[in-house]
């Protein structure tokens, strides 16, 4: 089972969505959650705080999109190991394939439930332990 104190970064330009994801994570036992409003903000936080262990990111955001954030994370030696779960309304096949090829750890389409999020998190943790 994953560490409940694991520090998680939730990235979404909609404040409502960030609140929902934060609450769902809390429901699943993860209370150590920070928020970022776009990819640029996220990358700054990941680099300056340096102790995040998991990223949950939206795709469609201004300044830097989720897929760009994912590519930046994978290209950064200090961050590339970070699991990144994409949570997005982009349901096109090409989006999912692009995310997988860019190194996403999981992909959840909105709208989703706490149960879906739980399942995906567990799957990512299981893969990490392999």
């Amino acid at each position, binding site marked *: 089972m994953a560490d409940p104190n694991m520090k998680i970064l939730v990235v*979404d*330009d*909609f*404040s*409502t*969505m960030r*609140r*929902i994801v934060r*609450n*769902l994570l809390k*429901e699943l036992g993860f209370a150590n959650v920070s928020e970022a409003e776009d990819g640029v903000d996220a990358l700054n936080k990941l680099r300056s705080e340096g102790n995040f262990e998991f990223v949950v990111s939206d795709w*469609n*955001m*201004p300044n830097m999109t989720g897929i760009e954030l994912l590519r930046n994370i994978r290209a950064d030696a200090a961050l590339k190991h970070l699991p990144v779960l994409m949570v997005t*309304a*982009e*349901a*096109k*096949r*090409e989006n*999912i*394939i692009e995310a*997988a*090829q860019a190194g*996403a*750890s*999981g*992909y*959840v*389409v*909105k*709208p*989703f*439930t*706490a149960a*879906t999020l739980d399942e995906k998190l567990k799957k990512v943790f299981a893969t990490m332990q392999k």
Partner: protein
Amino acid sequence: MTTPTPRKKRTKLSDAKVEKIGLATARLHRILKELGHTRHLEKSASTMPDARERLSFIDRSMHEASEKTISAVEASLPLTSANRATCSDLSIRLADANFGKKNEALVMETISKLGEIAMAEESVRHNLMQIMEAQEFRDVAGQMVNKIVDAAVEIENILLDILKEYAPDTKDSLISKEGLTAGPGHQTKDSVNGQDEVDDLLASLGL
């Protein structure tokens, strides 16, 4: 021997065609003016900012409603947890306490009711989580509204272009475009249906 005539470029319009288009344009210009259609166009264009304002109102209302709902849920969740803990604690203490034979039935009934209250609180908590999850509509619906706003802005720009062409005295711009985000849009043929298909696709990609 005859010299070959150079081939005409297909894209080049003949003078006759150019003249025809010119005449048609002039005619359209005249008709628009005569029939007062420029006013209709102007009216159509001027309704766009109104449409945009209404859509913005919808977006704002959705946002406020979602925020209020989530705040209420956040305030209620700890209450249900506290109530369940209280029920459990009281039940244990009541079961251990000695109220005598006379009160035994009442104590048993109280313990049983406390159990029922705890179960009801669990249902309330479950429902609160569902209310929270339902607020997700705000995200996708908000992006959809933004898409429609984009379309309204585009239609207005087209109408204004026509107006500028045929009625140069019309105001330059009736609205200014705000920075709008692209949205998820409607489902295209290439879209997946739900998480199951996402998972299937991911599995096929080895994820």
